[in-house]
């Protein structure tokens, strides 16, 4: 049994706006075992990207981490000073951003951008060492050595995204957070980039949190899947079980709305709309759209509990 590399406990991230507090992440708890790939899915406004930003401590005012813990390898990230957190980033955890074209400096050559982070984190490298590092990083993400001397605009979208992957692994962190890393890419390129990320994950024994809303990509890449809705964690479990036997009614609707090969022409959406995070419904946040809701659901918030070994769910159907 491996130790969890990351433990998130009762995390709350609120945005304070004129009308009140927007509960973007509300009381979220989960563990991530060392060396696993976990997917985090949810609709827009479900809090999945806020979750990623919180882990990177990138929440800016009016947003605030209102409570809870994020323990990475024994250290609570919430308690770190800004400087300590800066040192932790890249060394312990790194992020692969969504739009590579906006993440790279357009007037800096790729080799420079790859070592920039290391230099900033106090790694001293001779000229030769630098070149070796750059060459190795490029090789790891399947890019040709000549890319080192190129500028971002000379690369395709897929190649740019590979550069950001190389940046993220430059100091061999324990955990990588990838926020929709392939959403801007074509299917073929998406698959190539995901295979690169997968290979690295296995080779370096990284843990990975893949954030997105593409359930297809999740089914193909991650071993565990976490589902968020309206700022709350609904269900977590092994990807296969989540697809084949979803426990939470929201997950059930989500899975049945997916376009799979077998049910051509069946279009089942989830009725209703996402609630406002300013005034989330009393009780379970999903009860307003839930086909299985009863009295209790509008009165008390279901606890996030382990319904089966390794399977967590926040639903009154599974807590009783």
């Amino acid at each position, binding site marked *: 049994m491996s130790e969890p590399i990351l433990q998130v406990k009762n995390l709350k991230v609120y945005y304070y706006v004129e009308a009140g507090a927007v509960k973007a992440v509300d009381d979220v708890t989960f563990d991530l075992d060392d060396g696993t790939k976990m997917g985090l899915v949810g609709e827009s406004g479900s809090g999945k990207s806020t979750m990623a930003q919180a882990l990177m401590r990138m929440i800016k005012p009016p947003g605030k981490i209102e409570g809870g813990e994020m323990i990475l390898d024994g250290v609570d990230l919430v308690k770190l000073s800004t400087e300590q957190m800066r040192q932790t980033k890249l060394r312990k955890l790194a992020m692969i951003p969504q739009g590579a074209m906006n993440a790279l400096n357009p007037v800096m050559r790729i080799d420079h951008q790859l070592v920039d982070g290391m230099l900033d984190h106090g790694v001293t490298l001779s000229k030769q060492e630098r070149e070796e590092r750059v060459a190795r990083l490029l090789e790891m993400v399947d890019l040709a050595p000549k890319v080192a001397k190129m500028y971002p605009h000379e690369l395709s979208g897929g190649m740019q995204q590979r550069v950001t992957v190389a940046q993220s692994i430059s100091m061999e962190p324990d955990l990588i957070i990838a926020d929709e890393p392939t959403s801007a890419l*074509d299917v073929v390129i998406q698959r190539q980039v995901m295979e690169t990320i997968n290979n690295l994950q296995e080779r370096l024994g990284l843990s990975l949190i893949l954030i997105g809303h593409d359930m297809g990509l999740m*089914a193909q890449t991650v071993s565990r899947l976490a589902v968020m809705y309206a700022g709350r964690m609904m269900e977590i479990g092994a990807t296969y079980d989540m697809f084949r036997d979803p426990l939470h009614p929201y997950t059930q609707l*989500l899975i049945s709305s997916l*376009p*799979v090969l077998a049910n051509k022409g069946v*279009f089942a959406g989830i009725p209703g709309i996402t609630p406002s995070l300013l005034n989330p419904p009393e009780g379970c946040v999903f009860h307003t759209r839930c086909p299985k809701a009863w009295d209790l659901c509008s009165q008390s918030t279901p606890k996030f509990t382990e319904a089966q070994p390794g399977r967590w769910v926040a639903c009154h159907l599974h807590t009783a």
Partner: protein
Amino acid sequence: MTTPLLELKHVTKIFGTKKDQTVALDDMTLALNETFPKIITVAGESGSGKSTTGMLLLGFYGPTMGEVLFRGRPLYELKGADLFQFRRDVQAVFQDPFAVYNPFYLVDNLLSIPIKNFKLASSKSEARELMEEALERVGLRPAETLGRYPHQLSGGQRQRIAVARALLLKPKLLITDEPVSMVDASLRSTILKALRGLNKEFGTPIFYITHDLTTAYHISDYIIILYRGSVMEAGNVDTIIKDPQHPYTKLLVSSIPWPDPDLVWGGAEDMIQKSQVAFKAITGCKFAPRCPYRMDICDTKPPDLYLLERDRAAACYLSMDNAVLPREELTSLFAEA
């Protein structure tokens, strides 16, 4: 044979300057008939020419070579009443549900302006009825939708209003360019359902442009796979997605991330050729530089379309034992048996 509603005749579109030319669409012939109420998808990666095809059909720009015809007359020369008729008969739903709205106007405008322009209603109450009916058809509650500003609605709701607008005009043809790519996965099915409903109930043909083969498979009857401006494979969507024949279609289909943990990404052999090759002028098959089955003949001249079945053809020398389908007869694939 009746004159098609909208047709491309040997259309080539080239962007760029004389020195640096990009052939976005290469000798495409395609006819869209109002009497053929099917959904035809055009699919391909970025740079395949799929959006260019849509833009040409909508008359947003003219072809470099060839002709775009609306009821037999060059679209780019239409004026006055004819242009007005075209705007009414051919409707579009675009990708970005944010950009089609003016943030300062109520969303009602998107529906009330076409009613006014095309004189669909004789009174205010009749106009209101039309708007409500159209919204209900796409699964929106008029009371919760009308009288609101765009920012008060979700992307999915806004995109459904755009579909409702198209519904309102009962067009003869609907052209949709990636209508669900910016919408949450959980809302995609409601929009696709609305489009499918429009197609089935009113018999409106839909020209569906996408890079997403999953939704293409679900919504359409026929598909055209484009690569760098040329048709690679075309015909019945079911057989093409389930049993692709062209190596490029195989690559695309095996890269679809199906939301099904039992359907894992296909083998690695078709991934050998990375897309990192420089594209010079290609004399033969455009896909040859990436193709794992490349033969000498592939570099000599572009392959013809070979008829694999009555309703399916592939432009690949691997299929050259079959009869040739002249490129200008592409549309013959899209017909009932």
